[in-house]
């Protein structure tokens, strides 16, 4: 756009400097965390602190599983993130589709009920949420961790908006061809909203992977902890073992970094979409 070109260089410098400082504020700590995971324990706590490693070592990755049950935490995080996400895709897109394109008695009431749950902050209901899971016998189980996180009003809303945009003719043609409702949904409609689906998948994986509070409440057993609450408990107890903590942090950040590098567009679209249309 031409309003960018009109600006003289001297005026752009302070503005660009501010933007670069902000970017450094995000990037440098992360970069430092990554580099520090490869420094020997002694260098991590040396004065003055080093940014680039003086000595490169993989010892923390070789020994991290002796100090933290990292394989188990990693497995639990994968189960939590994938379990929640796969169920969420099914449940929320089915509901979004029905609210967008089907007529049924009680539709408005059920949709309003769904929207109303958006107004319930999780932290406010965390005490009874724990109790519901406990009373169902799901405390310290994968189901207890996953099921309460599956239905998300914002996702249903986002899917409804996506399905609303599909032309009616497509549906009519499929109906004339004799497809039943579920067939229309899976074969005709779902492929039309692929990018919204990917947004939901990416945000759901990232959200559950990084969720700390919910696993803290219902996955407290050492065998059930995810990376987020397992690592938090580890650094709470052993503040001295920085190398292991950094290695653990790097292991927990890496899958999401890859997801971000390949799906950044979907992170942004999902965040903006689920927020702005609400």
């Amino acid at each position, binding site marked *: 756009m031409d309003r960018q070109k009109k600006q003289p260089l001297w005026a752009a410098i302070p503005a660009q400097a501010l933007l670069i400082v902000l970017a450094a504020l995000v990037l440098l700590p992360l970069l430092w*965390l990554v580099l*520090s995971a490869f420094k020997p324990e002694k260098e*991590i706590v040396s004065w003055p602190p080093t940014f680039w490693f003086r000595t490169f070592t993989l010892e923390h990755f070789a020994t991290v599983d002796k100090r933290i049950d990292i394989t188990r935490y990693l497995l639990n995080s994968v189960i939590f993130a994938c379990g929640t996400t796969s169920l969420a895709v099914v449940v929320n897109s089915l*509901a979004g589709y029905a609210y967008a394109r089907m007529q049924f008695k009680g539709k408005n009431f059920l949709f309003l009920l769904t929207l109303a749950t958006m107004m319930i902050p999780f932290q406010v209901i965390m005490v009874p949420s724990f109790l519901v899971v406990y009373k169902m016998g799901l405390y310290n189980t994968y189901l207890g961790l996953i099921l*309460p996180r599956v*239905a998300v009003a914002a996702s249903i809303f986002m899917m409804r908006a996506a399905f609303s945009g599909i032309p009616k003719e497509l549906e009519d043609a499929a109906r004339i061809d004799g497809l039943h409702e579920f067939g229309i949904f899976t074969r005709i409609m779902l492929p039309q909203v692929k990018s919204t689906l990917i947004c939901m998948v990416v945000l759901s994986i990232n959200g559950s992977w990084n969720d*700390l509070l919910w696993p*803290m409440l219902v996955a407290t057993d050492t065998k059930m902890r995810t990376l987020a609450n397992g690592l938090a408990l580890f650094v*709470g107890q052993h503040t001295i073992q920085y190398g292991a903590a950094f290695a653990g942090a790097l292991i927990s950040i890496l899958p999401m970094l890859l997801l971000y590098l390949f799906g950044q567009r979907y992170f942004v679209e999902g965040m903006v979409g689920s927020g702005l249309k609400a």
Partner: protein
Amino acid sequence: MTPVRRLLTYLNPPSRSAYFFVAPSILLLLAFNLTPLIASFGLSLSSASMTLDRISFVGLEQFVRILSDARFLNSLKVTAILTLLEVPLQAFGAMVIGAMVANNSFWNKTLRAVYFLPIICSATVIGIMWRMILHSNVGFVTYALSLMGLGKINFLNSAQTTIFVVSFLSLWRSFGVSAIIYVTAVQQVNPSLYEAAQLDGAGRIRQFLNVTAPSIRPTFWFILMTRFAGSLQIFDIIYVTTGGGPNFTTESTVAYVYARAFASGGDMGYASAMSMVLFAFIMLVTVLLYRRMIRED
């Protein structure tokens, strides 16, 4: 029509399957969102142990108790301070930055991708990273201060600094998301408005104040609303940095609820009463800001 026949007309094929389509989500939301909300009201009127082995109705007694609990009142104060420190910076700062990187040049896209990056960090990672960076003996910030000839600051253990650290980290985590939401709003502003402003000789700052800012007011209220509600629920950043200390100076209301219900207490009735008070505040703020946002639209 007989009731049976009426029911059958409701259940003609497309609408019958509609119920199967919405049923899973409705059942899950009922079980894990609405039931807990209703249970919350009930629990706040009871005295209950952690797994409800012992539970008795006590009326409004818990509310009377929390109002004279200095630690609870302190937690409200801490929550309010954290919110007031973070939310305005988020709403105004992210607006300015969002407007600055709104043009789709390669450089701006790169900056946006960087600003958004903290979304991939769990609170745990943020805690591990920043506790070390702010370490009072070997941290980078301490080192930078010593280079400037300043002394050590005990960022995470001193009552004067911890609250700023917590609000900074909270800002660090979500600033990029707010900025990118603003970017989307700025990109939808009618370009002819900028052309008109340029003809009037308006520079970049004038254009921002006279064109951009007024055009994206709904987004401003939206950010204010969501960040307010989010900040009133602040917990995990505190848990991984200060743990509420020193001496409760960073213990938010949710942190106190957690402590009372899970960490050391199992006092579910008391914790629920505190949650209800917090809920009232969140609803109040949300409704006020929501009405304001609707008026802007």
